[in-house]
């Protein structure tokens, strides 16, 4: 016997969850299997669709050559990326042909975002096609398609005076630097930064979850409840901003389960709107998003299990995957499926594996095109068009993986998210959008493989 489902999704990041929800919507019986927690834990909680168009074919270079070779020339000659883009959809057709957005089309991006809006509460941005501009912890302003409600009062298009608050114990977030950079970026409002001491005597390197927990529970800090104590520490700085702050931004650890209540209590005491500035890892907004996505799986009746990797597969003569083998802490358990979605992440999520010998997709052994010469995997410019950023599984427009010969390698497999080749999501600011668009199509396609 094996554990049997119609569709098995491998990988529990944004792409896997989207594929599972999408296949379930089509009526399939779906199971999601994920090894470790996904990169959502480290991501900002922002859902980027397309913020910039990097120049992929600088003048004078042969666009048909491998996306890589000899791009080490004069770095400074290369044009800046186009952007920030106001409208991510209209720019899709200007991406390289091999980009996942070009395979599935701008409509798939729209549908993926709509599925997200449906499944996840507490997000904003769905009212318009245009990107919102959200300040980040590096002091940049980032074009993004959806943002958590907790970040809403911080939008850069809003002209109310802003105070950014940092904590001396939290060196990853420098409020004055954030404020200076925002001002330098010509935002249409007054902004100042202030460092305060978090009112509790936590150890130097106390975990962010510790702060969030204290605020969630409104723990007394030397006799005063944490929320009131925090507001009291910030209050004297409200006038650091010309005209007096009408909104106050904090690093994103204002509570976890009780985040909305924490923000409301602070806003009440400060007489100003309160928002969170998305952080790098560890990211509470990312964690909260993960919780909501898994809640949506539960609501959709999708079975899921995490903590266990898929390690191997069995195929029939025609390359159809019949069973996946899951390593459950030492015992190998077979999972039978009619169709499989592969959403195991990229180089970061371990869905694509690279070593000196080459680049591989380790679960099913899908072909990953890459230059044989390792010196062509990267270019000298750290911020340049890095070939390895685009490494991944190549597919047809139905997201079926293509072998070295260009033929479909596994007919009942669909690939989604960071496992796909062709996108440089970090430079384009398109990571979540690619996962949503391709997850949606992969799920729909996988459901269609199931014999009615």
């Amino acid at each position: 016997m094996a554990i049997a489902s119609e569709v098995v999704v491998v990988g529990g990041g944004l792409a896997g969850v989207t594929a599972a929800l999408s296949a379930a919507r089509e009526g399939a019986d779906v199971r999601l299997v994920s090894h470790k927690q996904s990169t959502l834990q480290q991501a900002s909680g922002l859902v980027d669709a397309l913020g910039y168009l990097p120049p992929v074919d600088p003048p004078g270079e042969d666009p048909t050559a491998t996306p890589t070779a000899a791009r080490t020339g004069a770095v400074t000659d290369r044009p800046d990326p186009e952007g920030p883009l106001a409208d991510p959809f209209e720019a899709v057709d200007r991406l390289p042909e091999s980009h996942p957005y070009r395979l599935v089309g701008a409509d798939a991006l729209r549908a993926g975002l709509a599925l997200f809006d449906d499944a996840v509460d507490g997000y904003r941005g769905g009212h318009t096609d245009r990107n919102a501009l959200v300040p980040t912890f590096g002091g940049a302003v980032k074009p993004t398609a959806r943002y958590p409600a907790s970040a809403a009062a911080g939008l850069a298009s809003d002209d109310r005076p802003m105070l950014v608050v940092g904590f001396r114990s939290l060196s990853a977030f420098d409020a004055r630097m954030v404020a200076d950079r925002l001002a330098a970026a010509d935002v249409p409002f007054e902004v100042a930064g202030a460092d305060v001491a978090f009112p509790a005597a936590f150890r130097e390197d106390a975990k962010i979850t510790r702060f969030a927990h204290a605020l969630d529970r409104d723990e007394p800090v030397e006799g005063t409840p944490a929320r009131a104590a925090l507001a009291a520490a910030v209050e004297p700085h409200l006038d650091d901003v010309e005209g007096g702050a009408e909104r106050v931004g904090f690093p994103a650890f204002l509570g976890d389960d009780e985040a909305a209540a924490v923000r409301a209590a602070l806003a009440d005491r400060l007489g100003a709107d309160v928002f969170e500035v998305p952080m790098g890892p560890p990211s509470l907004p990312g964690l909260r998003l993960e919780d909501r996505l898994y809640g949506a799986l539960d609501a959709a009746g999708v079975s899921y299990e995490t903590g266990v990797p898929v390690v191997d597969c069995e195929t029939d003569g025609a390359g159809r995957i019949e069973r996946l083998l899951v390593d459950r802490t030492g015992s190998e358990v077979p999972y039978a499926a009619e169709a499989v979605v592969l959403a195991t992440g990229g180089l970061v999520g371990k869905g694509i594996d690279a070593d000196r010998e080459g680049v591989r997709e380790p679960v099913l052994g899908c072909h990953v095109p890459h230059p044989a010469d390792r010196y062509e995997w990267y270019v000298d410019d750290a911020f340049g068009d890095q070939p390895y950023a685009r490494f991944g599984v190549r597919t047809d427009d139905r997201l079926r993986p293509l072998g070295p010969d260009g033929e479909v390698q596994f007919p009942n497999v669909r690939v989604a998210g960071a496992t796909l080749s062709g996108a440089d999501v970090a430079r384009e600011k398109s990571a979540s959008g690619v996962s949503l668009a391709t997850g949606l199509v992969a799920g729909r396609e996988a459901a269609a493989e199931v014999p009615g």
Partner: protein
Amino acid sequence: MTGSDEEERTGAASDPLDPDDYDAVDVFEGGDLDLRAGSDSCYKCTSCDTSCPVAEVDDSFPGPKFQGPEQWRLKRKEDADIDDSITSCSNCMRCDDACPSSVPLSQMHNEARGEYVDEQMDKLSREYVRNRILSNYRFFAAIASKTPRLANFVTGLGVTQWAGEKLLGITSEREFPDFAEETFREWWRKRGGAAVENPDKRVAYFHGCYSNYNTPEVGKAMVRVYEEFGYEVLVPPQKCSGTPMFANGMLPDARRHAETNVENLVAAIGDGADVIASCTSCSMALRQEYPELFDLHGVDDVAEHTFEALEYLRINEDLEGALSEAELDGESFAYHAPCHARNQGLARQAVETFREVEGADIEDVGDSCSGISGTYGWKAEKYDYSMEIGAEMFEHMEAADGEVGMTECPTCAMQMEHGTGYEIRHPLQALESALVE
């Protein structure tokens, strides 16, 4: 195949609690484990820190990233002492599950804890003696269960609890679990062992201490459900899985128990059986911690053939089919997935199994840790943290429709009951109600 309780108890009685009799077995034959590869693959994403329930409430705890890869590196470089914060890690293994880079965090913690206890801890200290007692729970359970009524009476006395707290640092906030009038093994022997013989479908039951001494109804439910599906059940002689010992750095103790367990389970596997456990920390120990820590003959065999009881049925039987005919009498459960179930991919199995059963309503109360983590929540200095970690689960339980809790882990069950007053059942007991006449 029924091990007598006699030999069991003698086995238990040989467990030394006398510090002078402490035999410091070299846990890692051929020296320390080489965990460099694991340590090197840490890219400091802090996912582990974010998922650590202890770091969330105890700001003196520097978190798993420090305990694991950072401490390991520090130690290699300058031969530094193990930081004593390692004793605050509850061994919930959540960090293991979180790390996207497969750094073997809990293995690193287990090793560090063992070294700390071995080399740095004063063997006459109250803390050491207390931890030794807590982790050798089975030793006391074996004695107490000979006179369960007396034991229940004594442990219920206020003065016992007072003494426990003052002398040993065991919290007086908790009630000691009741000992059963009849242990699972006594019941099994009286019953005459297995009621089904079947050379083609055999399982060896690793009942662990808790379902033997405290909740034999879980073990009985397991037997009845498995026999309903035509399995022959073996109950090999066994000792403690070692889970509480790992959590307290008592690795030589754990190893001794593991030796007996592996030897007997290998024999059962030789007889054609797969091993099943009803406690997710026991299956975790057999599947992951044994092979990580002990180089014993057959240890990988045991890991490969071990399953959790419900998991095994879901893989090998058409459980959904059987349950589609079954009915429960309007039962609503608030289900909590134990941390050790999570790492085995079992966090959702009960919810999925009962979702389709007529008359049963099951709700997942969320992914927080229950906070007790075996012996952690019994320590006087950890009790408040333990309840703070559990608070989220208690709230979600109260908010759920069910007034009956459900979980696979006996100490989580203790915590759920302690925090909400709910009666707690094991999924096997609900299966028994649904499937066995």
